[in-house]
Structures are given as structure tokens and as C-alpha cells.
């Protein structure tokens, strides 16, 4: 204890103690010299002998310093100071090392922050570990008529997390002993109006026990509770923290104010904490939560919510203490089977769905699953960049170690122990890593935002999910430390291995690297090339694939088209008023100067949105309802359907092959359709199908007339450009029930389409200012946004590959430049003996090419294997495309030649006279 105290005191006064020792030793030497002189030795010799007898004063001082206290801490500070000075002295080295590491760490930290947010973060609720998700699995026959949510279907059967309201109620009532089940539904977009100012936002409907069971306390006001979730309750809603800040400026009096959701007036009961983003898919952050019972009011166009054959309620369960997942599952399974058997007697006996439970602490899983692969790929790319950066810094350190042989030899001669020198070099490496880490964290902030669209997150989700938090910081620290070890240890031990005599000798032989050291630097450079090749090849594949996607002929004229959407149903429009509004809009748009044509459809083309149904020939008999053959029949007859107006084909410039398109006269007549060539060929084996009959839907009420085909049009892409043109049936909007969701208008313009945006908005405002126009953009922009993920991915991977390439070039350049300096006398001799400049040039170039060839030999298998993770993303390219591989290899070779250019020219300019004299 007292020893510790003395030690602390000594540590605090260590400078004074050191000074004292120095003085004491000087005194000692003086006395010794005096004594020797007294023995008759000359003064000079006496002083020398006295000094020798004391020996290495520096080591003595260091030893006693170490004894006094906290040697590591003390000398680390010293090492750091020294390291900082060394870095300042060679800014070029410092900048290259720190920037390359920063890029590597930044890329890795960005991927980590996204993965953390998307894959690992749990919901901001009480005890997320005890939450479970309910999912049902059934045979191939669907247990419902319609379903909202995510469904999976394959040969074996179907599965989804959406349940009927009846089943949800039964879960709550009959399994209450084992599990608390909350219900909610994603209402997607809603028209949210405060004080008459409308905007499009997002809404969820939640059950009365939702906030209580999840344990989410509002930051202001109260949460929704059971009394709110009754059909006769006064409409109350809670809002998200983000919406509260956006629309109410975080005002405390927001509670109690009214908010119109799709025209229905709600009173704001409370504001939710900022960490809570609901229990929906990853990236969703609803602005408003209304009671489940109010869904009927807010989305009146949907099927009746109480219909047991309409499955739309998503659930989260919280297991009661001590209840196992299996016990709860068993009970829920029985309850679901009972509920479905009551609603669909035809399924009883065989195909009743069963319940499975999954851990639910992270919310819904479907979107998250789709983000996993792109994240994994991004992670792989980031890791490669980090490794290239590490190899690059290692080779830089190694080269510096050689340049510092003299300094290190001096240190060793002055009594620095080998371990001490290694530690000094490691400290310098750590300093570089720390600076790189700081830069990396800053870059990660920006990179994670840039990366989000590349993995398929939409813009809304980016703000809720990206950013740097404590976990990301910790990750960056760990990566930086690991990197420091990776690139610091080898060069440190190599460099500390100096032979004193060799290091201190005068002249050109100073610090000639051993064979082993040369091989090591060569290996590091080759490794950078080997690691960069997969990066370059991957980027090449993605860029070529994007190029192919952009060149796909969409089948209609995408230029000069302005698109926008309205959703009158969100403003409480009924059928008659909706028709009046859209017809009025078409009429006025067509009369607007600068407009060549205008049309409408129920989906925006090339926006990954479609209605998919079934169409068959009347003579193909559909299997009976509930039959196990029905799903297979439906899959064989899948048909994409688009509801359009009379002038759609004219406006979009889709060529009509046979027959005619819709006319107003069809409005009251028998059902007609225009089909594309693909559907015509599938149904009839020919495109000459005008006048033939088609049957849409497999579950038809008897007596419904078949649809007459009045025209066949050329194939054009519908949902995206990646898949084949689907078999498409165009239906006439005057023959169908009115649009229950958004209507898309297509406006063909004479000039630049975006120039008409303001005019078009004005026209729509003139019709009804309560129906907001949204999603206005040109068709070209729509195609660009469709390819956004591909483009961002290609851009980012090109950027990272470019960094890898640049780092490799720097590594190669450094090695060659050093080699040329080393070999200057040799080159001088060669030239004096008659070697031509060309030979010398080639000598340097050859070294570069040999290293590159070794790197490529190692890199090609890595690239072939590594780029296979991209297979699912590529379009129009064979997997492991040989052309791209060759281009990537050529790029590497060109880089090698470029990196060799300056050193080679310097070598060729060596003047034999100058070289040999030194």
C-alpha cells in the first residue's frame, strides 16, 4: 500500500526524480575520475574510464524510470508524442496512410451501422426478448379470399403473418392465460391534415392493448388504450415524435388538437417517444397510430374488416412469464384452426393452417430478410477495401522502417532495447490507426447514408436507420485496433531487427534490405493487387449490368412524359365524384397548351407496382374452388392487369398490332380487353386474337360474361425492366369499379416535361385543392428511380474499387521507387557497361509486371469466387463473365504500368558518372 503511494508520488514527480538521478550519476563520474587521477592516470583518460564504468546512462535512467511507477503509461505518452512528431515530419506518408485506413474503416463502419440498424436492433419496447411473431402455414389452398400484407407461396403451400380479425380476437380471448397478443395493420399512406393543410403521411392501426402490452409510454399525453378501440369510441390517435416535430414544431399543446386522417377527424391523445418506430417492417416509422376499430373509417374502400375471409391483422405476442414458445404455439394453433374451420367449412378436415412462432423482438422480418444479401455483399466489399488499406499501410510502414534504419540503429546504440523500439513502432502504427479510425467514423456517417439506397432502403427509412451511435463508435475502435495489429506488427518486428554496425555505417550500403524483407514488401504489394481484383471485377460487373438495364427497350416512348398521382379515396370521394374528378382532370389537361396527350392508369408504369390476376381461355376449365389443383392452375395463368383509359396507348405510344383500342362507346357494353402480344401468344398461340374470348379470374360468379378481346398491342414493360415483359391484359376503366387507390396520370408534352409541372399542379388544384397531387416526376426520372438501387450499388462499388486500385498503385509505386533508389549504383554500372535506357526501363517495368502477375494469379480465383455473390443482382451478363474479368485484369495491368512509369523513368535517367561517384 505504502509502496503504491510512494510509486504514485514518484510518478507525479518523475521529471524531478530523473533530473536528480542524472545529477547523482554526473557526481559519481566526477568522483571516480578524481580517484583515478589520484592514482596517476591523466585527466582525459580518467574521465573517459569513469564514464565507461558508469556505462549507459540513458539505459540506467530508463530503467529507474520504469521502476518508479507506471512505466507503460509514462513511455506510451512519450511514444505517442514521438510518434506524432514523426508523422508530422513525413506528412505525405501520414496523409496516405491515414486516408487509406480512414476509407477502409469508414466503409466497414458504414456497413456495420446499417447492419446494426437493419438486422440486429431490437424494438424500443419493454423486454423485447419475450416478444414473438405469429405466422401461419397452410397447404396450397388459400384459407382466405383476400390478404393484406406479405404472403409467401410455393408448390408446398402458403404462409403469411396476416390473420383475420376474428382469428386475432380469438387469440386474445382464448389464449390469454399464455400470451398477450396485440394486433396492428399497416395502412400505408394516408392523407394527414392539420388545420386544413394536407400532406401524405403514413399510418398504422393498432389494437387497444398495443401500447400497454408492448410497454411503450408516450412522452406526452396518453397512449391509446382499450376504450379507444371500440366502434363507438370518440376517434383518438397518437402521433410519432418525428411527426410531432415536423407538423407541430414539438409544441406541448399538440395533445388535444385535431388531426384529419383521410378526412376523418381524430383528437391527438399523445406523442410517442422518439425511439419507437412501431412494430412494422424495418425502416417504417408511421406518423400516426389510430385504433384498429377506426380502420373501417379511415380506409372505407378496403374489404369489410370483420369479414373472416379478409386477412389483414398483423400480430405480436408477449409470452406470459414461465410459458414456453411451444406451449403458446400449441394453444394458438388450435384456436386458429377452429376459427378458419368456422369461416371456410370447405377446408375443414385437411388443409387448415397451422401456427408457428418466431422471435419477435426485432419486429417484422420480410423486409429485413430482403436487405440481408445486399448488406452482406456491401460488407464483403468494405472488408476487401479495408484489407487493401491495411496491406498498403503495412508496406508503407515497412518502407519507412527501412528509411529509418539509421534512426533506429542510433536508438539501439543509445540503449533502446529491441522491445522498446518495437513498442515505439507499434505506437506509431496505432496512432495512424487511431487517426484513420476518427476519419472513418466521420466518413461512415456520410457513407451509411449513401449506402442505404444501395441495399434497397427507401429514402424514408434512411433517416430513421442511419447515423453513428455508441455501438458504431465501438466497432470503429475495434476495427482500428485490429487493423493496427494487422499492419503494424510485422513491419515493427522487421524494422526493429537492425544490426547496429550495418545501420550506422556511412555510405550507400546503409540499410540494404535483406532478401526476406524484400520478399515481404513484394508479397504485401501483390496482396493489394490480389485483393483489388475482385473489387474491380465486381464493380465492372455491376456497371455493365446497370448499362444493360438502362438500355432495355421499355416498349413505349418514355421521353416527354410527365407522371403524377392523386388518390381521391383518401379525401373521402365516392364512386361518382371520383369519376367526375378524373374525367374533368383528363379533359382540362388535354386542353392545356404544351400538352400533346393525357391518359390515366391504375398503376404507374415501371414502378414495381402491378395488379396480378388470372386469365384463361373459356375452354380451359378451372379446377373447383378449394381444389388442390387450383393454385397450380392459377400460377400457369398469371396475368398482369392494367386499367387504362381510351387514349392510354396513344399517349404512351404503344403500337397497336391488331384491332382497336377502347372507345367511350364500350362504357356500357359487354366487357372488352386489349391484350399484349405475349398474352395473345400464351392464350391462342398467335397474336391474331381479335374477337376471341378470355376469362379473367378463377373464382367467378356464375353468369359473368367472358371478356372479348378487341385489340392486340405490342409488348411493353409494366412493373420493371429486369424481368421479361409479362403477359398483360389492359382493361377499360369505364367498365370497372372506380379506383380505390391512387390514380396515375400520364401527360405527354411537346417540350421538356418538367417545365409543365407547375401548370399541371395548377390544373389539379383548380379541380379540388383538397386532393393533393403527389409523386410528380417524368417517366425518365421514374425509370432512373427504378434503377436507383442498382445505380447506387454500381457507383459505390466503383468508388471503392477505385480506392482499392489507387492504394495498390501507391503501394506498387512506393516499392518500385525505393527499389530504384537502392539499385541506383547497380543501374549506373549497367549503363556504364553499355546497357540501353530501354533495358533499364524494362527492368523496372518488369518488376512491376511480375508483382502484378503474381497478384493477379492469386486474385483471379478470389474474383471468380467473390463476384458470385453478385449473381442475383446482375442483368444481361453470364455469371463469372469472362469479358469483365479480362477487363478487370487489364485495368490492373494498366495500373501497374502507370505506377511503374515514374520510377522507371527515373531509373532510365540515372547518370552513370553521378551514380558511381557516390
Amino acid at each position, binding site marked *: 500500500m505504502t509502496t503504491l503511494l510512494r510509486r504514485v508520488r514518484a510518478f507525479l514527480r518523475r521529471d524531478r526524480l530523473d533530473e536528480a538521478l542524472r545529477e*547523482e*550519476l554526473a*557526481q559519481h563520474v566526477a568522483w571516480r575520475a578524481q580517484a583515478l587521477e589520484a592514482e596517476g592516470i591523466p585527466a582525459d583518460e580518467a574521465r573517459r574510464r569513469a564514464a565507461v564504468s*558508469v556505462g549507459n546512462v540513458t539505459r*540506467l535512467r530508463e530503467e529507474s524510470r520504469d521502476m518508479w511507477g507506471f512505466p507503460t503509461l509514462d513511455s506510451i505518452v512519450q511514444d505517442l508524442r514521438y510518434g506524432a512528431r514523426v508523422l508530422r515530419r513525413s506528412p505525405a506518408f501520414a496523409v496516405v496512410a491515414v486516408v487509406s485506413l480512414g476509407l477502409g474503416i469508414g466503409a466497414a463502419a458504414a456497413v456495420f451501422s446499417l447492419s446494426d440498424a437493419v438486422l440486429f436492433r431490437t424494438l424500443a419496447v419493454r423486454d423485447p426478448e419475450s416478444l414473438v411473431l405469429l405466422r401461419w402455414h397452410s397447404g396450397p389452398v388459400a384459407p382466405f379470399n383476400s390478404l393484406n400484407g406479405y404472403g409467401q407461396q410455393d408448390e408446398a403451400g402458403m404462409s403469411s403473418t396476416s390473420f383475420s380479425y376474428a382469428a386475432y380476437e380469438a387469440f386474445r380471448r382464448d389464449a390469454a392465460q399464455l400470451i398477450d397478443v396485440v394486433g396492428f395493420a399497416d395502412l400505408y399512406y394516408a392523407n394527414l391534415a392539420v388545420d386544413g393543410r394536407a400532406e401524405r403521411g403514413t399510418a398504422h392501426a393498432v389494437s387497444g392493448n398495443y401500447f400497454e402490452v408492448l410497454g411503450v409510454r408516450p412522452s406526452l399525453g396518453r397512449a391509446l388504450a382499450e376504450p379507444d378501440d371500440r366502434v363507438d369510441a370518440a376517434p383518438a390517435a397518437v402521433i410519432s415524435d418525428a411527426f410531432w416535430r415536423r407538423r407541430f414544431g414539438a409544441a406541448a399543446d399538440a395533445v388535444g388538437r385535431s388531426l384529419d386522417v383521410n378526412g376523418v377527424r381524430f383528437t391527438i391523445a399523445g406523442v410517442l417517444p422518439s425511439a419507437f418506430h412501431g412494430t412494422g417492417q424495418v425502416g417504417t416509422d408511421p406518423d400516426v397510430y389510430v385504433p384498429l376499430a377506426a380502420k373501417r373509417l379511415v380506409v372505407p374502400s378496403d374489404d369489410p374488416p370483420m369479414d373472416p375471409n379478409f386477412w389483414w391483422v398483423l400480430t405480436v405476442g408477449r409470452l406470459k412469464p414461465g410459458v414456453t414458445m411451444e406451449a403458446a404455439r400449441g394453444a394458438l394453433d388450435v384456436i386458429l384452426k377452429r376459427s378458419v374451420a368456422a369461416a371456410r367449412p370447405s377446408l375443414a378436415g385437411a388443409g387448415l393452417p397451422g401456427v408457428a412462432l418466431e422471435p419477435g423482438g426485432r419486429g417484422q422480418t420480410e423486409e429485413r430478410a430482403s436487405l440481408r444479401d445486399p448488406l452482406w455483399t456491401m460488407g464483403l466489399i468494405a472488408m476487401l477495401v479495408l484489407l487493401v488499406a491495411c496491406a498498403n499501410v503495412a508496406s508503407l510502414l515497412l518502407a519507412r522502417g527501412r528509411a529509418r534504419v539509421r534512426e533506429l540503429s542510433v536508438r539501439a546504440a543509445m540503449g533502446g532495447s529491441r522491445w522498446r523500439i518495437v513498442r515505439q513502432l507499434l505506437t506509431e502504427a496505432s496512432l495512424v490507426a487511431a487517426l484513420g479510425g476518427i476519419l472513418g467514423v466521420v466518413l461512415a456517417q456520410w457513407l451509411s447514408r449513401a449506402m442505404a439506397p444501395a441495399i434497397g432502403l427507401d429514402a424514408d427509412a434512411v433517416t430513421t436507420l442511419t447515423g453513428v451511435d455508441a455501438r458504431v463508435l465501438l466497432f470503429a475502435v475495434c476495427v482500428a485496433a485490429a487493423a493496427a495489429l494487422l499492419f503494424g506488427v510485422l513491419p515493427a518486428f522487421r524494422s526493429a531487427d537492425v544490426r547496429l554496425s550495418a545501420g550506422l555505417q556511412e555510405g550507400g550500403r546503409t540499410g540494404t534490405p535483406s532478401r526476406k524483407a524484400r520478399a515481404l514488401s513484394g508479397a504485401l504489394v501483390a496482396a493489394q493487387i490480389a485483393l483489388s481484383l475482385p473489387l474491380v471485377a465486381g464493380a465492372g460487373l455491376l456497371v455493365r449490368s446497370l448499362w444493360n438495364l438502362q438500355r432495355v427497350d421499355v416498349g413505349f416512348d418514355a421521353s416527354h412524359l410527365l407522371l403524377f398521382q392523386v388518390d381521391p379515396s383518401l379525401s373521402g370521394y365516392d364512386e361518382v365524384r371520383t369519376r367526375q374528378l378524373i374525367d374533368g382532370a383528363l379533359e382540362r389537361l388535354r386542353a392545356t397548351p404544351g400538352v400533346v396527350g393525357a391518359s390515366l392508369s391504375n398503376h404507374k408504369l415501371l414502378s414495381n407496382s402491378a395488379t396480378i390476376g388470372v386469365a384463361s381461355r373459356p375452354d380451359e376449365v378451372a379446377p373447383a374452388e378449394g381444389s388442390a389443383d387450383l393454385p397450380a392452375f392459377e400460377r400457369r395463368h398469371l396475368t398482369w392487369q392494367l386499367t387504362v383509359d381510351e387514349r392510354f396507348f396513344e399517349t404512351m405510344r404503344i403500337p397497336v398490332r391488331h384491332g382497336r383500342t377502347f372507345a367511350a362507346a364500350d362504357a356500357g357494353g359487354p366487357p372488352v380487353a386489349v391484350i399484349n402480344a405475349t398474352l395473345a401468344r400464351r392464350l391462342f398461340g398467335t397474336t391474331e386474337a381479335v374477337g376471341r374470348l378470355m376469362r379473367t379470374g378463377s373464382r367467378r360468379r356464375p353468369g359473368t360474361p367472358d371478356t372479348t378481346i378487341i385489340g392486340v398491342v405490342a409488348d411493353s414493360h409494366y412493373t420493371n425492366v429486369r424481368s421479361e415483359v409479362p403477359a398483360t391484359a389492359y382493361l377499360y376503366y369505364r367498365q370497372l369499379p372506380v379506383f380505390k387507390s391512387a390514380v396515375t396520370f400520364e401527360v405527354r408534352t411537346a417540350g421538356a416535361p418538367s417545365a409543365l409541372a407547375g401548370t399541371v399542379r395548377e390544373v389539379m388544384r383548380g379541380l379540388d385543392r383538397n386532393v393533393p397531387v403527389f409523386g410528380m416526376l417524368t417517366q425518365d426520372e421514374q425509370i432512373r428511380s427504378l434503377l436507383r438501387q442498382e445505380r447506387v450499388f454500381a457507383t459505390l462499388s466503383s468508388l471503392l474499387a477505385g480506392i482499392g486500385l489507387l492504394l495498390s498503385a501507391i503501394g506498387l509505386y512506393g516499392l518500385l521507387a525505393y527499389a530504384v533508389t537502392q539499385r541506383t549504383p547497380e543501374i549506373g554500372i549497367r549503363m556504364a557497361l553499355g546497357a540501353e535506357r530501354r533495358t533499364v526501363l524494362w527492368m523496372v517495368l518488369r518488376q512491376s509486371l511480375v508483382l502484378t502477375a503474381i497478384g493477379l494469379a492469386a486474385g483471379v480465383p478470389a474474383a471468380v469466387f467473390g463476384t458470385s455473390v453478385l449473381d442475383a443482382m446482375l442483368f444481361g451478363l453470364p455469371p463469372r463473365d469472362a469479358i469483365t474479368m479480362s477487363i478487370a485484369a487489364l485495368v490492373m495491368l494498366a495500373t501497374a504500368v502507370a505506377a511503374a512509369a515514374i520510377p522507371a523513368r527515373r531509373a532510365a535517367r540515372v547518370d552513370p558518372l553521378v551514380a558511381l561517384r557516390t
Partner: protein
Amino acid sequence: MGRTSRQELLPGTLDMLILKTLATGGVMHGYGVAEHIRRVSRDVLQVEEGSLYPALQRLQLQGLVKSEWGHSANNRRARYYRLTPAGRRALGDAQTSFGRLLEAIGRVMDPSRSTE
């Protein structure tokens, strides 16, 4: 260089020799300690300065020795060391165990003495 006449110290004995020197000599500086050991051992034990000063530091840290600055006979500033009570106790312990060690070595080297 007269190396033959000098003797390597047994490990661990230097601390004891310093403590003993201070116990007999009272207050001494480092040079004095080295000279005393050399003189008393008749030039057989040569204390390396490279080990003497670290040893003094170590003893100070263990609280066995105290130091203060003073002036030497020729009025030069010097650091003087003295034994602490703890140091005196430690010296006693060291002498006892060293004595036993010497005795044991003696018995091994000259078995005739071990008969009694």
C-alpha cells in the same frame, strides 16, 4: 584489467550489501557505498554502477532506504542515503537467511563438517 581478481555477485546479494554498508557507515552517497564495498572486500567485490543506482532506487521504493540531498566534504551537492527501521529489519532477515545459505553450501562443499 585485473578482471580475474573481481568476483561476480551472487544474485540478490547486492541489496544486502548496500543495506549492510549503510548500517555500518550511517549516511553515505552512492559513490561512497560503491567504494566502501570495494574497499572492505579488498577489491574482490566490484559493484557495477549500472546495478548500484537501480538497486538504490529499488530499495527506496520498498521503503528500506531514504535519501536526501546534502553537500559533500568538498561542498558538492550529492544525494545521501540512510537506512530506515524497515531497512534494518530487512537486513537482519537477509543476514540470517544468507548465513543459512552459506552454511548449507559449506556443508555440501566440505562434507566432513556435516558429521556433527
